[in-house]
């Protein structure tokens, strides 16, 4: 049994996921925000509105609002936690590592608490829930860096 996996933990709905679902971090808006992105899944109705403030090559502020299942909402909360205050290249690397873990054979090294979402891989129809906020962040980092680079 992996470290940190308590015996009462569900393989999918891990304790930390339920905690982020019920007590989301970085929930709300951002003022000012450089980039706001909407990601939604019309099939299941999950919605994420992600706000980013990028300053001097770093994620100075990040917040999300939205509605949806525990996986999409906890994933958004944990994602914000993991990249807040980080240099944008580090944030981009985290996005890449997370996507590798969910979509390919990537390991959990350097992902910290995000490792908890690995259980979603056994539920293929739910992978899109976990990735929803990350797709928004990927786009946001690209849009934001383009904006920052402008003279």
């Amino acid at each position, binding site marked *: 049994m992996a470290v940190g996996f308590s015996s009462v933990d*569900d393989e999918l709905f891990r304790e930390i996921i339920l905690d982020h679902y019920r007590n989301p971090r970085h929930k709300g808006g951002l003022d000012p925000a450089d980039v706001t992105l909407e990601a939604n899944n019309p099939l299941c*109705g999950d919605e994420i509105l992600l706000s980013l403030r990028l300053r001097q090559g770093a994620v100075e502020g990040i917040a999300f609002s939205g509605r949806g299942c525990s996986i999409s909402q906890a994933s958004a909360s944990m994602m914000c936690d993991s990249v807040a205050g980080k240099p944008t290249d580090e944030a981009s690397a985290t996005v890449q590592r997370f996507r590798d873990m969910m979509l390919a054979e990537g390991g959990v090294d350097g992902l910290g608490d995000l490792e908890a979402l690995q259980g979603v891989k056994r539920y293929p129809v*739910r992978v899109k829930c976990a990735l929803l906020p990350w797709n928004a962040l990927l786009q946001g980092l690209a849009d934001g860096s383009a904006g920052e680079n402008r003279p």
Partner: protein
Amino acid sequence: MTAITDPATLDVDRVRADFPVLARRIGERPLVYLDSAATSQKPLPVLDAVERYYWYSNANVHRGVHTLGTEATELFENARRRIAAFIDAPEDGVVFVRNATEGINLVAASYARELLSPGDRIVLTEMEHHSNLVPWQLAAEHAGLELAYIGVRDDGTLDLERAAELLRPPTRLLSIAHQSNVLGTINPVRQLVEMAHEHGAVVCVDAAQSVPHMPVSVRSLDCDFLAFSGHKMCAPMGIGVLWARPELLERMPPFLGGGSMILRVDLDHSTWNSVPHKFEAGTPDVASAAGLAVACDYLDAVGRDRIHAHELSLTRHLLDVLDEVGGLSVYGPGSVPERGGAVSFNVADVHPHDVGTILDREGVAVRAGHHCCQPLMRRLDVDATVRASMYLYNTHAEIDALGAALHEVKRVFRV
């Protein structure tokens, strides 16, 4: 074919033996299929009919003079007669379509858009499936029609006082679900038809959730259009029926153009085949039509009164089980027979998709989501619901299995 031994009750074990898929296991658990409002499972006689058609009689209909062509045409036209009898309606009003959605689109496009005038009003309800909303929105936009909605009361029934206000000029058409796919509410269609007809409006009934589950008589409802899907009533996917008053079909222009629906084609214009063929362009799904006719036979052999009574008994049990599980919000009428066998609920703050995933781990198949009823979800002030829906092959033990699985949801989510 299932032989009925006890005239009063449905022999569910005998019925289940006719549905091969019900023997499946999901992981280590037996499948508990509670999603028949989305699509029903198919019994062996229907599967046999489809296979038999392709093995022995496959040919195009209404065309060749050869034996197979004649057989296929007979199968197809006999299916039309069988379905007309099944819904107690004149057979020249039976138009084969793909599903209820296509049937409603046909009425919206060929009746509402073409025969109504700007300023005319179409009345719908807040509980309609998107398939009974969007076609009318398209027609309204195209033809300058007004849309108005009968509200849903807190108990999941329609606001009939509002209906009485709306069902007068300039209302020209009412389109309404016979039974709600979310709430299970059985709407008083006969009463609404009387109200509409009194003021010269026609009525279209979305019977997708009623025809499979209870005896439905077009003559007794006195409606003008009625649409339903084969796949929700033990027949294959891809075949559905629009029944329409033949005299209305005569007045309506074609929906789709092509082969079969014409009398004569010239380069500059064409004339139309007789009703209902005028509305059936192209090669139809003959195998599925044959399957639908056999599904009608199957449901009648079991007995539609018996099926309805069985579902009401299951629904009563389900409402008790949900009450016993506790901590749930249950939507729709609280008692039978005001409702049929589709029951929506939520488990505390747990999202329906999470509920659905845990139930699936326990082998229980339910629908989770907005059920193609986004306006109704807003009326209920929820994003989505879990829906358990039942049919002739479900058992009281399966409802108990759902109850146990819901306890598992509560355990995992600590509610």
